[in-house]
């Protein structure tokens, strides 16, 4: 049981009459790369929100690093070692890139409680933040407002922020969505290069990316897991093909 | 026993007045999501104009109509000239309509003076009804019926007529509504005019109930806002129910603990909003 870095068991999420997740079980061992795929509306993002704590399940449990966190709010899960990115880039748009990093770092220590000194002058925040920026090739953009960044840079910043907190579990919600092919390749490379001590769960629409990056793939449809296995197994699964062809026909 | 009947019916009658005021707001605010703090000012326009005409000898119903039409046109002017530029931006809407309310209130003060005036009670509705030992003002009784009738009519218009469908479509998704050929700006203009026209109607009737002064605009506005929010934005039935509840709570609050009257009303509204932000009948809000 403790082998799983993050796991959801029998998760159901009901919105009014709509059941977004229906008895989903998903257990990801430590160090694994897991991709979640499935058509639009399959419940992938809802599942992410349940795992990260933005939503509380109607029923079912969530464990993080062996601990039951079903009732633990998002910010506490974050402190336990969970980091996530958002499907639609969700950064602090009106703050600078550097401030985004500094705030993320401040959450790791007592620095976030300081209320009398400027953010950049607290402890080693400034130096650490600059190191992160340099590491992710964002050094030139530190003073820019996030909303002024190119979209690809924003996606990279999201991952940089998530990684700056040294998470044990990283949830990536469509990291390459909306990126130009070049940016997507760059980002795929960055994710592939993440150390194996980190467990990564990602939602990914681009099959090629998903299959390249992942060890295991889970396929969701209409709120259920309809298939799971290695990329090769899933790629040949009839139900999966059907689900995707069905979506193609709809669109 | 009869006293309690009187209290209860009167609570409903007062609630009906609140609904008349709030009905326009449920449309402009609840449906269109346009915050109109000048709603009370249009209430004043209707009331003062009808008072002016009626005291000059104009037929009552004609005076009423003139007040409603004037406020509807005024509302449409404000919508066309200013508000439509601020679609979806609630804060500027608040500041703008507050400004409009200040101007209208101040101009009424300048033209009519600040002494209270009252449009006449509708002809035939003066005096009380007597049933056995029970005495109740006719006008107030009729007002309950008018409120319910108005709720039914507005609700049905929105639900079952093509115009209503257009309005809902325009509010739900402006892009798509445009795409299917609905003239969204026109729809918004007319709907806003209806909202301010209803405010004026409430001004004429409510003015006969409570009299009018330039300050009355804001007094009724706060109560109407409460009704709309408690009822749930955009729900006509909710607004009617909320109006009745607020009317009854207000009535019994005044009877049982008069010294806490203002506190009880606002504190209970605050408590409700804190727990159920979408009001009694509003749809749950997803975040």
């Amino acid at each position, binding site marked *: 049981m403790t082998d799983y870095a993050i796991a959801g068991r029998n998760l159901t999420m009901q919105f009014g009459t709509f059941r977004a997740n229906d008895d989903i079980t998903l257990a990801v061992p430590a160090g694994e790369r897991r991709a979640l795929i499935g058509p639009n509306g399959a419940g992938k993002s809802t599942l992410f929100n349940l795992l990260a704590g933005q939503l509380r399940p109607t029923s079912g449990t969530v464990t993080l690093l062996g601990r039951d966190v079903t009732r633990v709010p998002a910010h506490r899960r974050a402190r336990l070692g969970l980091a996530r990115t958002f499907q639609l880039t969700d950064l602090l748009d009106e703050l600078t890139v550097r401030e985004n990093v500094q705030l993320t770092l401040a959450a790791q220590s007592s620095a976030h409680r300081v209320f009398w000194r400027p953010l950049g002058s607290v402890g080693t925040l400034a130096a650490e933040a600059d190191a992160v920026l340099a590491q992710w090739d964002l050094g030139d953009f530190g003073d820019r407002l996030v909303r002024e960044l190119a979209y690809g840079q924003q996606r990279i910043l999201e991952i940089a922020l998530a990684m700056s907190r040294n998470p044990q579990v990283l949830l990536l919600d469509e990291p390459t969505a909306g990126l130009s092919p070049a940016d997507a390749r760059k980002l795929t490379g960055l994710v592939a290069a993440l150390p194996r001590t980190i467990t990564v769960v990602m939602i990914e629409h681009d099959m090629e990316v998903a299959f390249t990056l992942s060890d295991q793939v889970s396929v969701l449809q209409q709120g259920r897991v309809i298939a799971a296995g290695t990329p090769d197994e899933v790629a040949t699964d009839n139900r999966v093909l059907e689900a995707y062809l069905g979506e193609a026909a709809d669109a | 026993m009869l*006293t309690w009947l*009187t*209290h209860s019916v*009167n*609570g409903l*009658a*007062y609630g009906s*007045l609140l609904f008349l005021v709030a009905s326009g707001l449920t449309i402009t605010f609840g449906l269109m999501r346009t915050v109109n703090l000048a709603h009370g000012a249009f209430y004043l326009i209707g009331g003062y104009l009808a008072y002016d005409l009626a005291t000059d000898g104009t037929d009552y119903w004609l005076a009423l109509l003139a007040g409603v039409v004037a406020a509807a046109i005024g509302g449409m002017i404000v919508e066309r000239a200013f508000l439509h530029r601020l679609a979806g931006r609630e804060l500027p809407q608040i500041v703008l309509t507050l400004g409009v309310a200040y101007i209208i209130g*101040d101009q009424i*003060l300048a033209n009519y*003076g*600040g*002494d*209270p*005036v*009252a449009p006449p009670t509708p002809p035939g509705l003066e*005096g*009380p009804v*007597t049933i056995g030992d029970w*005495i*109740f*003002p006719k*006008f*107030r009784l009729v007002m309950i019926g008018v409120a319910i009738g108005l709720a039914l009519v507005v609700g049905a218009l929105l639900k079952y007529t093509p115009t209503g469908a257009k309005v809902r479509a325009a509010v739900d998704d402006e892009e798509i509504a445009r795409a299917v050929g609905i003239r969204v700006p026109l729809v918004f203009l007319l709907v806003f005019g209806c909202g301010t026209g209803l405010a004026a109607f409430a001004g004429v009737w409510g003015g006969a*109930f*409570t*009299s009018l*002064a*330039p*300050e*009355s605009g804001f*007094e*009724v506005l706060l*109560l109407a806002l409460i009704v709309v929010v408690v009822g749930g934005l955009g729900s006509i039935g909710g607004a009617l129910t909320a109006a009745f509840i607020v009317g009854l709570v*207000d*009535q019994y609050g*005044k*009877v049982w603990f*008069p*010294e806490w*009257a*203002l506190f009880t009303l606002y504190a209970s509204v605050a408590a409700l909003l804190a727990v159920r932000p979408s009001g009694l009948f509003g749809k749950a809000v997803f975040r």
Partner: protein
Amino acid sequence: MQFDMAKVRAAAAAGAVLLLVAACGGKDPSAKGAPDGDSKATGSKGSVTVGLLNPATGPFAALGTDVNAGFEAYLKSKGGVLSGYAIKVAKADEGTDAAQGTTKARQLVEQDKAQIVIGLVNSAIAYAVAPYMEDTAKVPLLITVAGADGLTRKQNGNTFRLSYTSSQDSMPLGPYTCKDMGKQKAVVLGLDYSFGWEAAGGFARTYEDAGCQVVQEIYAPLGTQDWGPYVNQVKKDADVVYVVAPGQDGVRLLKAYRDFGVKLPIVAHGATVDETILATEGSSADGVISSLHYTPQIDSPQNKALLDAADKGGNQYLEDGWAAGMTLEAALATIDSDPTPDKIRAALAGVKIEAPRGPLSFDAYGQAVYPVYIRKVEEKDGKRVNSILTSVPNVSQFGTYDPATYLGFPGYEKLKGSWSK
């Protein structure tokens, strides 16, 4: 300090970013209006600047407008000259809160150099302005409407008041209701704020001291839209209902009272049925007996002069403004030259005039002593009026009580609710 003052001014003024001053519109005080008024008038003894501080906005705007109109009408009738002094009027808007009220009071005194300030409707603002006038400005204040009892409870103060204290005009009504009308049990129905408690208290004290009983007290919040819940609570076995609700509240109260068919006769504080709302109240006011220091029905040359000059018909606020003009004239008559605020203050204390309301003088606390009229609403020539039933001369803020005894009573806000016990 003096050595470099001029330099400091010059240097700082040249260099500073005077945002604050800029926001004031860079107004040059001397450019502003010399206080308006009849600029052509010249006085044989000089001139006096009068600050009129009454509301032009907010719920009391109508009252303020009437007071100003009354004062200006009197001034006009005298050609802009009172007792040999040309009167310059500086007008300011009292507004709706103390912040604005004191700002404008300061503007009148410090910029317009008013030698006396006349006005104030809102008691909360009067409470804020009066100490400034007395301690800082040292300019006399003549209050024309604000009613709070406490404003004129200090001897040798700087504050004078022509209008009633909230309880003053009610006091003659107590014995009248009990003895003359023979109504033994009264219900008090009034507004739940200081004016309401004080007015009701003045009635209740004198009524009970005359040997009758207040059997029930009902107070409704200021701005009550619907009086239905309150009028329905009135005990049916009482003999009379005492009502105090000025302005819009009075309109609503009387209408609800009649609509719900309550049959008990009404006695009222005069402000409940004064001429500013009587027409709007219409038939619902018929038969109401009330007490006030004024009614346009007074038959005297002084009142006729007022009614002739005011195109709107008389009311208590016009009379307050008019009487303020007469008071100032009487005070100035005793000053030969150089009417400083100190001289005006001293002169005011001794003023005795024959106002439209009747003989008027000030007590040792600066509060006017005057006749109070018991009036009844009747229809006359198609118009409702407050006809005089009788009058009580020389009513002071202490009624028939000894000032020292009266001042020892607890405040009416503490007594509210205890009359019926």
